[in-house]
């Protein structure tokens, strides 16, 4: 019963804290998205990602960092307490969320692996490795430039793309993809997919904000590493022209993953590059890397520091848990 109670409490706290944080994030996300527009792309991407994963990570942190130690330290091993219906329901919800996250992550991983194997079956190594990352040309008729993988990223360019880009345009496109690798964007995508909450789809607005900002940040990062903006823009034009042009339909008739018009990610990138080209805007080479990605680590350290210096907090937590049971 001790272990059932422990798992139930931890799972219930994940559900409670995660849901509460999601509601707060949901309420604040429109304002946050608007505010972020005034900040550099890298900072926007990092902030959007952090806020988006905040509910899930806070739920896990509180559950594993506070509830679990409080239970282990203060609950007698021979307890006869049984979880009541409400606790069981909350625990069921928490466990379902965690299992769904794990399932989505594994599914995404398996699909990625399948896709990679499919591409590798017709791959030809294109250029020497860049930053230890292999670059392949694949026999795929679509306009494809992608970087896949988390532990061992690989860049794939399809044959039509290789044949239509000049070497300097190819280098620019590859520099963009390498910027995604440096930013750990594939890992972030996996985490975003794993932590998607089915009932809070509006949080997807933050996913979109992150995707858009990460694309702009990758363009800027490529330029910072010496890629001329003309080559980047030229590569974007050629690759985009190889792709499908979807007709605009009345909004009520369709639902777009990427809404047409000004909201499309490509249009934002095109406008961004156009502005850089026309006005001769420079990407600040000394733009500081926002330490916002360290916030998660800082939060964990802070929680543990507080717990170590204030041991009574765990006792207080245990008392609260007793009320929950």
């Amino acid at each position, binding site marked *: 019963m001790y272990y059932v109670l422990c798992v139930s409490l931890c799972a219930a706290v994940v559900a409670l804290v995660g849901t509460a944080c999601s509601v707060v994030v949901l309420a604040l996300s429109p304002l946050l998205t608007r505010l972020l527009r005034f900040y550099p792309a890298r900072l926007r991407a990092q902030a959007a990602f952090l806020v988006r994963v905040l509910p899930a990570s806070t739920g896990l942190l509180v559950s594993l960092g506070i509830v679990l130690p409080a239970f282990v330290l203060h609950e007698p091993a021979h307890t006869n307490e049984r979880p009541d219906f409400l606790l069981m329901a909350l625990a069921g919800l928490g466990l379902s969320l965690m299992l769904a996250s794990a399932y989505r992550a594994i599914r995404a991983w398996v699909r990625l692996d399948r896709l990679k194997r499919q591409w590798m079956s017709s791959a030809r190594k294109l250029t020497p490795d860049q930053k230890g990352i292999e670059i392949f040309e694949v026999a795929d*008729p679509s306009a494809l430039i992608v970087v896949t993988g988390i532990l061992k990223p690989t860049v794939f360019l399809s044959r039509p793309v290789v044949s239509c880009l000049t070497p300097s345009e190819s280098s620019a*496109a590859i520099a963009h993809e390498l910027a995604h690798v440096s930013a750990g964007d594939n890992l972030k995508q996996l985490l975003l997919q794993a932590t998607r909450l089915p009932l809070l789809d509006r949080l997807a607005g933050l996913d979109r904000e992150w995707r858009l900002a990460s694309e702009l940040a990758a363009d800027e990062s490529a330029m910072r590493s010496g890629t001329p903006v003309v080559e980047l823009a030229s590569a974007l034009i050629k690759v*985009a022209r190889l792709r499908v042009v979807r007709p605009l339909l009345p909004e009520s008739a369709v639902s777009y993953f990427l809404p047409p018009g000004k909201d499309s990610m490509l249009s934002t990138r095109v406008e961004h590059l156009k502005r850089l080209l026309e006005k001769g805007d420079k990407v600040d080479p000394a733009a500081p890397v926002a330490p916002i990605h360290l916030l998660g680590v800082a939060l964990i350290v802070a929680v543990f520091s507080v717990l170590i210096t204030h041991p009574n907090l765990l006792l207080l937590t245990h008392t609260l848990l007793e009320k929950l049971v």
Partner: protein
Amino acid sequence: MAAMRFPIRLPWSERAGASKLQHLGELELALLERVWKSGEASVRDIYHDHTPHLAYTTLMTTLDRLYKKGLLKRRLQGRAFYYSPAVSRSEFSEGVARQVVDFMLEFGEHPPTGIFSCFVDAVTENDSRLLDELERVVKSKRRNQQAG
């Protein structure tokens, strides 16, 4: 044969998830059909017998696009390109069927999100107009660079 993704317009191609699907325009499909039928054809051959009558440059551009998409091969004879199919009709159909299955497996429940980063994801008509503007700026910039 290595698994290939073929461009085709599908009934749900305007819905969420369509960005990963490549599709062919009506003219592209018609020209592909024409090349399958004749085995090999030049732009001039198609220009003379294609109905409705279309501009020579339109046909040339569309055939070039099909070549770049890997669906046609071409050889230069004199000053003209002769186009022939790079994939058979059955391979094409197989690719389409596979793509339909892939689509249903992959995007049946959720919008298309994969753990990979694409250089370009989806393109709309509005994007196309913006691309024209960007191209104008790029050309002007290149001219300035050459002059300078």
